[in-house]
């Protein structure tokens, strides 16, 4: 599996099978009265056929310049992804202020690994600034977590 297109094709094929497998259980309806399952099933089938075709084409004549390039620095990627998901999970229990400070600190620290004070200061400033702009000025309600803010 060297080529980008084979990953795309395989991924989309699996997706099509997953979607189709569920769509088949929706009421299909008839041409006269189209049911909710019609579109998803037809689309999943089309996608499946095209993906399979692409997969076969790529495996047979994949070109050299379309080889996939794995990133050499994947640590940052993983960190940011985890931080983003953590934010969405922790926002309600911990509240806006705490979660935002933590998130910003972690990301700034990653961007500037050698310093402690600067990332901490910036994360507090950024959180206060966002609080003022979004909660006070724009009036958007934020979750109050364990700290009550």
């Amino acid at each position: 599996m060297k080529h980008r297109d084979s990953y795309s094709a395989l991924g989309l094929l699996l997706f099509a099978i997953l979607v189709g497998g569920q769509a088949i259980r929706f009421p299909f309806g008839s041409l006269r009265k189209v049911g909710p399952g019609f579109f998803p099933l037809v689309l999943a089938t089309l996608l499946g056929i095209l993906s399979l075709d692409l997969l076969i084409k790529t495996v047979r004549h994949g070109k050299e310049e379309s080889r996939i390039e794995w990133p050499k620095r994947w640590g940052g990627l993983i960190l940011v992804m985890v931080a983003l998901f953590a934010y969405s999970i922790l926002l309600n229990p911990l509240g806006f202020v705490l979660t935002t400070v933590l998130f910003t600190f972690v990301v700034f620290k990653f961007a500037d690994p050698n310093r402690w004070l600067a990332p901490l200061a910036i994360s507090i400033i950024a959180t206060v600034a966002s609080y003022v702009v979004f909660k006070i000025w724009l009036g958007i309600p934020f979750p109050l977590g364990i700290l009550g803010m």
Partner: protein
Amino acid sequence: MDILSNLYLGFSVSLTLTNLWYCLVGCLIGTFIGVLPGLGVTATIALLMPLTFRLDPTTAIIMLAGIYYGAQYGGSTTSILVNIPGEASSVVTCIDGYQMARSGRAGPALGIAAFGSFIAGTLATFGLAFLAPPLASLALDFGPAEYFGLMSVGLIAAAFLAQGSMQKSVMMVILGLIFGTVGRDLVTSFPRFTYGIRELEDGLGLVPVLIGLFGVGEMLINLESPLEGRQIYQQHIKGILPSLNDWKQSIGAILRGSVMGFFLGIIPGGGAGISSYSSYAVEKRLSKAPEKFGQGAIQGVAGPESANNAGSQGAFVPLLTLGIPANSVMALLIGALMIHGIQPGPQIMTKTPQMFWGVITSMYVGNLMLLLLNLPLIGMWVQLLKVPYRIMFPGILLICLIGTYSMNNSSFELFLMGLFGILGYLFKKLDLEPAPMILAFVLGPLMEDSFKQALLASRGDLTVFIRRPISATFIGVIVLFIILQMIPLVRRYKTSVPKDDL
């Protein structure tokens, strides 16, 4: 004459203090993010959607439109001064613009870009004013079969115009259509792919999807390379006004770019990127000294910069007349309209003419503002570029998070944003085009609805799509696209078009 009274109505709306203010705000924000590489127009508009809730819908659209064409002005600044495109539509401006800067002609380059953009914007505004009403009247006669045909043409056009293999783009279209089926089916309320999650019953949110794909996804791709600084053209910029000779050389390019850009902007999947690239190619072909292109030919700046502005305004034609988005930004505007309870489509012109003409005339106002303000403010924009990326990027992520949350107060949507961020990253790695997918995602529910209604009316007769003349024309165009794609000459041309984040 009708058009004069319409323009009068429009200006009476767009020249109110509120609308002038928000037009200005939009233009400034647009220029700002146009200058900043890394944060795209689509993600920014998605982020600012919540702000527009409290505004009158006309004002909201005026502001969002200002951001869109304002970004075209901003993008040229970084292209010329730093050789880094601020927006995808400014890529070609780098080629000759940066060379002009290096030979001490940054001023005229920036100047001709601004003036060209203004002329293009003005012409495009007139184009809109003349073209939109007849198109909208035509569309009033459209039935569900015609709408289905039209939307299908739009999606095929988007797949055709996207870079890379059409087969992959069509697959992306289907993917988008599938994403569009998530949620409760409109007619029967049957839950599709909701897995008992309440937030999914209305479907996947447009804002988390777009911010994830374009905002987060862009940040993730940037993480692959070290967060380093950039070389900014340091010397003092003198002489912003282009010379008479510069004007003589550029005026043709500006006019050609405006017309070409406008029409390319109308086509779904077209837009500012394709407009600027096509303009560059045309100018090079028509030039008596093509070898100068790449060394600092002013037409290489004047043409594309005019084209991308005209393109961004041309994209409003399908939105205001047919209710169909030509690109992701228009898709967001449709979302904004629907939130305000306005049904996009030809009724916008008939039922709310003050919005229709107000938005069109505001574009002229906005272009004027941008011309007058941008040139003096260039110094300020350049200072902004000196902020190190490692400070900007966490800030952008934070804005993505809070912005998405502020839409619906939903942590689930934050999670969705993260998921689509990963997807956006994967799409870039795998060379899959997100633009056709987005269009399909937005059009999907509408298409399905039209399809159902058409078949309901014809009592299950599929040939209804071919029997009705307008709809048959659309089917014919689709077949034409498929045939065109199979011609090798067309395929080779397509592989050299740069990508557009719209």
